[in-house]
């Protein structure tokens, strides 16, 4: 046992100066108490209803993985279709999502871990339609981890010394235990998380197979959680193998049945990506043609399912499924 010596002075050595989402663990707890459904009642609904009810203008939005890799693309399309405004995006581990949402007029602030910078982003920055705050991928997921633990901040071993630090909500303090300098980052409790799972029951118990970015952290850290799932399974199936549950129902507000919901990306173990679709979205962004992309793939359709039927077609979807031959590990 270490006896306390003279009390250490806790000092802030350096502070980032950028705006960050307000940290309020008790406010978050109160939100959970007042809004989350503890009963095992169905949360199954359409993407349209989920976005109408749970995504509001001005919300801080986190999406999991990205448009190319197990992204919640049905829900992202619906956010664009409904024309949500002034969202603040957690732009981590991202190629195209931020550029799509910015050019669609939905996102006006972004925390940057990584997202493809491209003409739509450059224009939005120049025209003052987008503000960016600097983090890194792991710093963003550690902020979500702090949010998922119900604590106000987390000490981290990276990010100190960078210019990103100065343009963030991080602080460098003296560690009260070792006396050494340590970076702390503000917990992130997004207003809404959208996550695509392999399986879920109607209550929201969700299974995600394979690797990921921060699915569980985002689900637990966010005030409102929309799970889209390739398959809706019986709760008896969830109970058969509880160790396979990634996200527990009481964190979840909406469950959307979303087969091929990651199109044109892959849902690992279920279907491979559509390389043509992947190139098309890249091309649209790099050549500043996002509006024609939205007009082709999103705006004309009532639902994602209608887009899949009319724009992609069954043969292509079946081919994507057939091409996904590495299936070991993608079941419970």
């Amino acid at each position: 046992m270490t006896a306390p010596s003279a009390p250490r002075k806790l000092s802030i050595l350096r502070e980032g100066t950028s705006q960050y989402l307000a940290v309020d663990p008790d406010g978050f707890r109160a939100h959970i108490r007042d809004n989350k459904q503890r009963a095992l009642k169905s949360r199954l609904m359409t993407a349209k209803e989920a976005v109408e009810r749970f995504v509001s203008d001005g919300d801080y939005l986190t999406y999991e993985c990205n448009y190319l890799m197990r992204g919640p693309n049905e829900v992202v399309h619906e956010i664009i279709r409904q024309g949500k405004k002034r969202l603040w995006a957690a732009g981590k581990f991202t190629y195209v999502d931020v550029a799509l949402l910015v050019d669609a007029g939905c996102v006006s602030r972004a925390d940057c871990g990584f997202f493809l910078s491209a003409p739509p982003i450059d224009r939005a920055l120049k025209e003052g339609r987008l503000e960016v705050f600097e983090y890194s991928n792991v710093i963003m997921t550690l902020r979500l981890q702090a949010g998922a633990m119900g604590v106000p901040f987390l000490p981290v071993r990276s990010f100190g010394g960078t210019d990103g630090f100065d343009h963030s909500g991080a602080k460098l303090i003296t560690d009260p235990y070792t006396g050494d300098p340590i970076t702390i980052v503000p917990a992130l409790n997004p207003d809404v998380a959208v996550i695509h799972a392999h399986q879920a029951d109607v209550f929201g118990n969700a299974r995600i197979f394979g690797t990921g970015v921060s699915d569980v952290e985002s689900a637990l850290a966010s005030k409102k959680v929309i799970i889209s799932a390739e398959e809706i399974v019986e709760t008896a199936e969830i109970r058969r193998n509880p160790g396979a549950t990634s996200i527990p129902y009481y964190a979840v507000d909406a469950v959307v049945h979303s087969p091929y919901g990651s199109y044109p990306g892959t849902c690992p173990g279920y279907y491979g990506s559509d390389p043509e679709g992947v190139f098309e979205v890249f091309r649209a962004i790099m050549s500043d043609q996002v509006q024609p992309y939205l007009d082709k793939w999103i705006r004309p359709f009532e639902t994602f399912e209608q887009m899949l039927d009319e724009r992609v077609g069954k043969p292509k979807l079946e081919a994507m499924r057939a091409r996904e031959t590495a299936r070991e590990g993608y079941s419970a």
Partner: protein
Amino acid sequence: MTRAEAFSEREVARSTVAHLIEDGRTYWAAGGGTPLYAVLLGQKLYAPDAQYVTEDGVISPEPLLPFEPMMTMVASRAVHHALQWGTMNSAGVHAQLGHMDYGVLNTLQVDQHGNINSTFLGEYGGSGRRFGGPGGADTIAACCWRTILITDQDRRKFVKQVDFISSPGFLDGTPGARERAGLPRDTGPWRVVTPWAMYDYSERRLRLIARVPWVSVEEILAECEWKPLVASEVQVLEPPTEEELQLLRTELDVRGQTTDAAGGWITWDGEQYVRA
């Protein structure tokens, strides 16, 4: 192994890094392009017991090659037969714990102290150009014991001071600067590899230690905005082998996205290598 007779400059850098990969070490490859291909090249040809992780927390996969376009993480072929499937936080935390021997990164701009810019060229917030941001590289550069950086040999990329530190090198170059910023002890930049040259660090400053046969030290120094230290003996690197190029072109960078002809091609004219 057969010396190759025609290859692109960027293929040379992949080959040089492949020779740095060691058995029995862990590598965290940043993103899913160049660093991953370089590690896989080394692992498949020279160091079968080298292990790697990527940002999605996959540990030591046996990927099914070639990858589908852009699908070098998360996708089933990329994470196939791993020892563990994790998350970005598991990868980050394992690095914080000291499990990652080497980080392998590529970047837009590097400076004399090994600081890395992948965020902004020009004065931040001004009329310059924004890039993608650090991604996983900040944590790799902070927490892996040693980092290997891949970039092009170009005055605009080899600068005295980067416009924006996205990922930390030796910061201002003074002793203990990383520790004062809260970074783990005894970590930092180790090598920089370009299509023309390899550098290490002496007293936390870049030092030229090797060159390819077809480029002189003077030509290399002309493509640095400031003058790096030069080792008393600059080694001459081996050119790529046919085996390396075969693997790179048919299984790794099949579409030539990271090894394209940028910076030109090198050919053997019967007596020596020449830049096209």
